[in-house]
């Protein structure tokens, strides 16, 4: 099984609501106002938004078949679980090797640990896809 979130650039409207919903989903409270206004340790969104003129889109972890990040991680903190590449926060030491090798720039640097999209693997549909107002983000499971 492989999970994939991808963006149809023809219909991405650049609202960046995917980032908002991603942040809320990974916050402590899970509440949009609490997460943004009161949780100081909130993690930024896992989405990477890119824009050039009128073309824009969000990129997240593509769940590579043979992930370079797994090979690069000396701590064994990254593994494939149920078709999803998962980064174990406890094991990460913040060496940023995974950040450097990811061909999509989908792994981000936190304060001292890396973090990445987990494809909301416990949910049926990831929040970014669910809340995309123009259905530009699509979700595929094969």
């Amino acid at each position, binding site marked *: 099984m492989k999970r994939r979130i991808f963006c149809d650039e023809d*219909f991405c409207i650049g*609202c960046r*609501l995917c980032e908002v919903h991603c942040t809320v989903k990974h916050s402590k409270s899970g509440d949009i106002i609490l997460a943004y206004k009161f949780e100081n340790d909130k993690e930024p969104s896992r989405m990477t938004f890119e824009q050039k003129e*009128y073309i824009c889109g969000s990129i997240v972890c593509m769940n590579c078949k043979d992930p370079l990040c797994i090979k690069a991680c000396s701590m064994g903190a990254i593994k494939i679980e149920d078709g999803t590449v998962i980064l174990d926060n406890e094991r990460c030491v913040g060496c940023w090797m995974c950040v450097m090798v990811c061909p999509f720039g989908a792994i981000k640097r936190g304060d001292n640990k890396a973090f990445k999209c987990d494809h909301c693997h416990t949910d049926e549909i990831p929040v970014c896809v669910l809340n995309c107002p*123009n*259905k530009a983000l699509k979700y595929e499971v094969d």
Partner: protein
Amino acid sequence: MSNIIPEFNVDKNEDRCIKCKVCVRQCSEGVFKYFDEFDLIRIYNDKCIGCHRCEMMCPTDALTITKNTALYKENSHWSSYTINSIKKQAETGGMILTGSGNDKAYVSYWDKMLLDASQVTNPPIDPLREPMELRTYLGKKPEKVILKEENGDISLETKLAPQIKLETPIMFSAMSYGSISLNACESLASAASKLGTFYNTGEGGLHKKLYKYGKNTIGQVASGRFGVDTEYLDTCAAIEIKIGQGAKPGIGGHLPGEKVTVEISETRMIPSGTDAISPAPHHDIYSIEDLKQLICLIKEATNYEKPVFVKIAAVHNSAAIASGIVRAGADVIVIDGFRGGTGAAPSVIRDNTGMPIEIALAVIDQRLRDESIRNEVSIVAAGGIRSSADAVKAMALGADAVYIATAALIAMGCTLCQKCYKGKCNWGLTTQDPVLTRRLNPAIGSEKLTNLVTSWNLEIKEILGSMGINAIEALRGNRLRLRGIGLTELESKILGIEHAGM
């Protein structure tokens, strides 16, 4: 300095605002601006057009757009709109432009008509249990039908004029590629094809991408003749000659050069960047005889296989004109009432010209019946059909089908802010800006349109069932099933309906 008081107030609830800046990114009018240095979203009320895009996109419902109630001292003669219009004209020296349909408080006769229902003596029908027919054929109907029998097989001896088959008596009215975005055109085309009905190209020609929906396309030939060639005529299922538009009778169209992109110029077959001007009249049609020539020309070019529509705006002598159109050989007459929409029109024309579709429809249907030529033409009513009830009332008044466009746009996101002419539609409808056109995903647009018409179909079936009718054919022109409420004697007479209680 501008001395016009802003029409809208944009209120932001700071307790709810999370500074996600969705509003900043979504407003094409530049109402919001974010200052990084101060972490501040600054709001410019004067730029707000009241389209409510920001309000709907805000993930925390922190925004509220309200009408500026402080707008000038209350005056029942000099409304705030009038005062602002005068100020704008004094500042610019230009005509006031507007978009969409007439929004003034004229009487709506749909709201003064009630439908009949069956009780005791004539049983109603349950549409969920019994078949209900909405199929409609548009085109010239024969005076009589002769059947022939050969070896027990019965066939039709009368040669029928070309017809188009609609699975529902609701079609999407003319909106050109240019006035609306290609994504909006594609939404309409794909919905029409799913629903078994038709959409109209407006006079914008047919984009190559939409040729595959040809079987569900009515191609318009208007005064600018944009995009008309043999391929266009061959691809479309029917051809409509547009004489006038309900929102601006007697006024032509003007698509400014900056909106004529490469794709639009190819579709309209004009140089890119040049103004696309549709003259007010067709310069080869100054009489019914001239119209007949164009109808014959189109029929000849399409091998007499396609019905030819003629669309006129509802004006004071519509009935006489309609009679002439039938005699000129049209298969379908489209009447567009004064509530019909437009991409751009002078406000003074939109708000003061034409007449209600209800009256025009009633008098045209009556005139054609009186002259015994009603069967020679189908009538399509357009302009301000808001619901399935309006559509049913139109059909009881004599329409064969209705055209909807404003309702279709609303289904796709439009909030009737009436700023279509600015070309900056925040919903990606009436714009060609690539940043904005992508806001309408045709997959979503088409789904919403299909849902809208499907629900209207269900409602129409429900209404027919309550009247004890099982086919829309049986309601057509059946004014006995309509009653007026709050109409004067003269209005009832013109509409050809009895007052409630009669």
